């Protein structure tokens, strides 16, 4: 009995200690100045990490912990109080197809992310229109010859539901069109890296990816409605498949969080490191 009591006390202490340390991470930002936790989109993670490194040099007493998992985890973590900033590839304070708005959250624009339609190098098609893309991804067009290519079945590769890249691609490149679910030549991948590998190794494959990932000779980006996927075309407004990256916060940001977001939005960072990482400064966009 004595032993059991001892065990109970120890176990409870352990549980309390663990809970406290988890709660501490979340609570620290509310009470203590100088601790920022960032969670969410993997697409924005390189930008966040670079900004954190520079910001900490300026303010050595601020501690920043950043991790990436998937766009929707950003606003979710903010909602649960796990993170101060939720990085998200869409404005999560508004409804998007498949996801309801996160009430009470403020979307802070931090970057412009361009996306590109990519095909395997064996595909001869150079240009696809919105209708053609919508047809391909909804499963109505299944052969490359229907869009001016050779006689071969189209292999559609897509991201899983909830990916920020998918949300934006569906809205901007497919004109809100559906993506087919149950087909023979259809495959889902879990990350941008998997998407690139899958399109590169599968003949006749089509997919979509952040423009910064487009490199190498196994894949090529196709034009959208006759416009090439380049940062210049995004800035001059002719290439439409891009989206703002957002830092979601619970209400208006305060304290160190506010300072950090302002640093990321500052001219110095936007025109310096952000550009180097192949994102586009938000100031470059007119809309």
């Amino acid at each position, binding site marked *: 009995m004595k032993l059991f009591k001892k065990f109970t006390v120890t*176990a409870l202490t352990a549980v309390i200690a663990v809970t406290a340390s988890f709660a501490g991470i979340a609570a620290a930002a509310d009470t203590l100045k100088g601790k920022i936790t960032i969670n969410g989109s993997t697409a924005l993670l390189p930008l966040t990490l670079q900004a954190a490194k520079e910001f900490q040099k300026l303010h050595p007493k601020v501690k920043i912990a950043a991790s990436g998992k998937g*766009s*929707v985890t950003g606003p979710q973590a903010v909602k649960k109080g796990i993170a101060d900033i939720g990085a998200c590839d869409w404005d999560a304070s508004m409804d998007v197809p498949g996801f309801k708005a996160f009430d009470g959250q403020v979307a802070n624009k931090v970057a412009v992310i361009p996306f590109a339609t990519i095909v395997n190098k064996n595909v001869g098609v150079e240009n696809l229109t919105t209708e053609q893309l919508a047809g391909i991804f909804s499963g109505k067009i299944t052969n490359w010859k229907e869009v001016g290519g050779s006689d071969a079945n189209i292999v559609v590769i897509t991201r899983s539901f909830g990916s920020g890249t998918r949300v934006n691609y569906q809205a901007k490149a497919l004109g809100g069109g559906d993506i087919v679910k149950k087909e023979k*030549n259809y495959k889902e991948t879990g990350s941008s890296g998997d998407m690139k590998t899958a399109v590169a190794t599968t003949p006749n494959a089509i997919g979509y990816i952040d423009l910064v990932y487009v490199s190498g000779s196994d894949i090529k980006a196709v034009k959208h409605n006759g416009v090439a996927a380049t940062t210049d075309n995004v800035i001059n407004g002719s290439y439409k498949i891009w989206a703002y990256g957002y830092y979601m916060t619970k209400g208006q940001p305060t304290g160190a969080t506010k300072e950090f977001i302002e640093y990321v939005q500052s001219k110095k960072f936007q025109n310096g490191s952000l550009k180097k990482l192949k994102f586009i400064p938000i100031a470059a966009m007119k809309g």
Partner: protein
Amino acid sequence: MGAPVQSLASQSPKKAEHSNINEKRHRRHLLGNRLSRYYFFFSILALCFVLALVIIFIGKTALLLFGDVSPAEFFLSFNWTPEEEAFGAAAFIVNTLTLTALTLLIAVPISVGMAVLCAEIAPKWMKSFIRPVLDLLVGIPSIVYGYLGLTVLLPFLRRISGEGLGDGVLAAALVLALMVLPTICRISDDAILAVPRKFRDAAYALGSTRLQVIMRVVLPAAKRGIISAIILGMTRAVGETMAVVMVIGNTPQLAKSLFTPSSVLTSNIVMQISNVEFDSNWNYALHMMAFLLLLISFVLILVIRVIGRKREDA
């Protein structure tokens, strides 16, 4: 205990001092023993406590699903369209069973054959080469197998089948078979080695050929060990995620052919769990699928224990 020491002390002071030291040392040992007993006991309890918490947490979250979705829909419907509130997991369950069966169909004959080769036939130098290599293969992370599957196996399957994609249960089964092969082989190998020498001698003495000895005497005698090896391989095949996710196609539909892109319980969980809202039926459904996997492994482990006990009795 005090009394004899006292009487000794009256006889010879030197001896008494000596036994006093001995007694102290003895007490220290007793204390140490008792403390370590508490420590081990506590470790076991802590482990059970954490495991129970895991099971309770997963189970509790999982069961929330049945507030909105009927168990019949979850287990019997083939329609998994969570964004439209359709949570039929039957396709994943059937695919998981199909994939496991196919994996074992490929892996078992090869690995048991290799085990026989290792234990009965191969010369010593070959054994000392095969065994370490197999042990090494167990240590390769599954994602590496998956990547090889994606970049080497899939293009190969595409070429020989003429399919556009090549993803499906066959690709997954081939990758998994390669992964469980060393496990099944090494444990079967041990089971065969454990068959007493005299069985073989007796069979040879009766004029059996080597093939007859292996097929009629050694394998039946090692049967239980081989079966538990197969089940161990099966638990690995059922729970394996990363390698499968890369080659199965991740489409929630029933695998009607070997090359239909489809999805199993593990791959569907890993693809979706990070993209769903915390308090949604979708999240609960994924937890239910995890709970189901837990139950499957639990049943398989129970089967191993039962077989193991029977072997001890025999």
